[in-house]
């Protein structure tokens, strides 16, 4: 009798534990805000031009909590990133996130809308500029 009770009790405990473990993470859609620009050429005010049918790209700029979350998710800082050690840069393929004590977290990425391919959202070196 006691044995049966113990088995049932253990099974119940186990079921509860499994349920709690799976409830730790929920697939949720969170709101975010950012800024974007659609351009041709390269993503800088000096080198960009008006987009044309064969040359349309979109660059996204994200800051705040989402940029922090992405920065933390993409792993260790780039070695020898910026000359200023306080500027931390993390880059995976064309996705670039950075942290500066002065202006917080920021992530940049871009797509070529003619091909859908991920392209750089910042031109070389811009990531370390003031």
């Amino acid at each position, binding site marked *: 009798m006691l044995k049966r009770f113990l088995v049932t009790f253990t099974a119940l405990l186990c079921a509860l534990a499994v349920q709690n473990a799976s409830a*730790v993470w929920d697939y949720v859609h969170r709101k975010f805000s950012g800024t974007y*620009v659609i351009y041709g050429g390269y993503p800088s005010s000096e080198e960009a031009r008006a987009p044309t049918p064969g040359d349309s790209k979109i660059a996204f700029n994200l800051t705040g909590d989402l940029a922090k979350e992405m920065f933390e998710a993409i792993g260790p800082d780039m070695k020898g990133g910026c000359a200023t050690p306080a500027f931390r840069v993390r880059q995976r393929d064309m996705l670039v996130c950075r942290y500066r004590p002065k202006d917080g977290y920021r992530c940049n990425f871009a797509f070529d809308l003619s091909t859908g391919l991920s392209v750089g959202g910042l031109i070389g070196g811009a990531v370390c500029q003031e």
Partner: protein
Amino acid sequence: MRKSLATIALLACGIALAQGARVWAFDYRPFTGHYSIYGGGLGDPVAPSKTSKNIAFWITGPVAKQMFKAMGPDLKDVCGAEDGNHIRQRAEVSCSFHPKDGYHCDFGFDLITGKSIGGSIC
């Protein structure tokens, strides 16, 4: 008289140039959307882990409309292209327009490799 005509012509030219230059500028505009950071696939998402960490973005409104228009012709006979839904896709970037729901775009990244991945299942 000749001098004043020249001045007017110069002014008109200056205004035309200024307006032409104002047509397009590299200016970032605000937008909003939704995102999710998840592990596994979008069809069966699990908690993100060290080996599987992705982000999906879903955006609507003017930014999605501009992306949709820039992406060229609709795809025919593809998943989702029914009930008046227009689908435009280039690589892993997907946009759609439905007369009732408006413009929508989705895309994503594998946060471990930085590679562009899809933001929807279909």
